[in-house]
């Protein structure tokens, strides 16, 4: 997926290098869906890994699952902070809207637009799902997180996450049955 990149920097085996190798692409893709420009997504990804640098000593003793959940929690918080700052600047967007996927296609990064075109039908149905269901689906499929990790990130019970996930899949399955895919 993201092999052969030159960020190993001559045998840099630090935790940050390993986690960057493993999760940067997924995290970047996740951040891209929530911000308006690719530059903003790059800045946010950098912020996530700078936070990692600060907490490297704590995280080094944690398991892989915990490290992954930590990264996604930080990324999610950075996105919320980013939109909070933007809302404060513009005084228009309420915080609740910031969690929803950016719909203004004039500002969405090109890669995301291409993805939307390729999965136009699915994209429309995903967009029609409630924000929390979208988020659970995204963390599951984009982040590769399990229900326990998603529950920890969203501060919900595991059962609630499972319900959100199955409801979202059920709705999408029905649309597949009724209308097929693109």
């Amino acid at each position, binding site marked *: *997926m*993201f092999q052969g*990149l*030159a*960020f190993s*920097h001559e045998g840099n085996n630090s935790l*940050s290098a390993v986690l*960057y190798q493993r999760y*940067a*692409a*997924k995290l*970047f*893709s996740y951040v*891209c869906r929530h911000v308006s420009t*690719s530059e903003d*997504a*790059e800045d946010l*990804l*950098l912020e996530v*890994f*700078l936070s990692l*640098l600060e907490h490297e000593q704590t995280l080094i003793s944690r398991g892989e699952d915990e490290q992954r959940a930590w990264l996604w929690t930080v990324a999610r918080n950075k996105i919320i902070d980013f939109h909070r700052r933007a809302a404060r600047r513009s005084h228009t967007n309420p915080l609740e809207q910031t969690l929803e996927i950016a719909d203004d296609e004039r500002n969405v990064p090109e*890669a995301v637009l*291409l*993805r939307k075109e390729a*999965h136009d039908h*699915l*994209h429309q149905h*995903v967009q029609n799902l409630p924000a929390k269901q979208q988020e659970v*689906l*995204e963390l599951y*499929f*984009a982040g590769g997180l399990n229900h326990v990790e998603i529950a920890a990130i969203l501060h919900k019970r595991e059962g609630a996450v499972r319900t959100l996930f199955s409801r979202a*899949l059920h709705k*999408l*399955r029905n649309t*597949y*049955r*009724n209308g*097929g*895919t693109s």
Partner: protein
Amino acid sequence: MKDDHFTALSREALEQQIERTLLLLADEATRGPHVLERELERDLQDYYAPSADQHEALQRVWRRFHAHQQAASKQSPALARASIIHLARRRKYRQIKMFTVALGQAKLTRYVGITAIVTAFVFALGSLVYMLARHNQCGIRPDFLPSAPGNA
């Protein structure tokens, strides 16, 4: 006329709906519901998968991160040096302070010494003056002096 148009449209829509349902039923019968589920899952994974053209952006972020990392590691020895300088300054300050205190003590000792010498000198001089005065008093009043055996 309107009713005919409506009936025609409804019939057409209904036929399309039936045709689609039959197709779906046939599709599900041949492929099974699990196939649809797998298809949905695959499409979702594909929809959320990171795109291949992120490579350059990820390289840029990594370079910036690496620069921060190096700056942080360079900053640490500087901080250590700063604390050494700080400690050295404190030590020097303490030395200056100690030197000042020693200097003050030396001055005090010297003053005490001089004062003691002056006091001793004044005391000796006073004693000498007193003895001379006493001697002079004895010279003025000879009756006080013991009389010679021939005078008694």
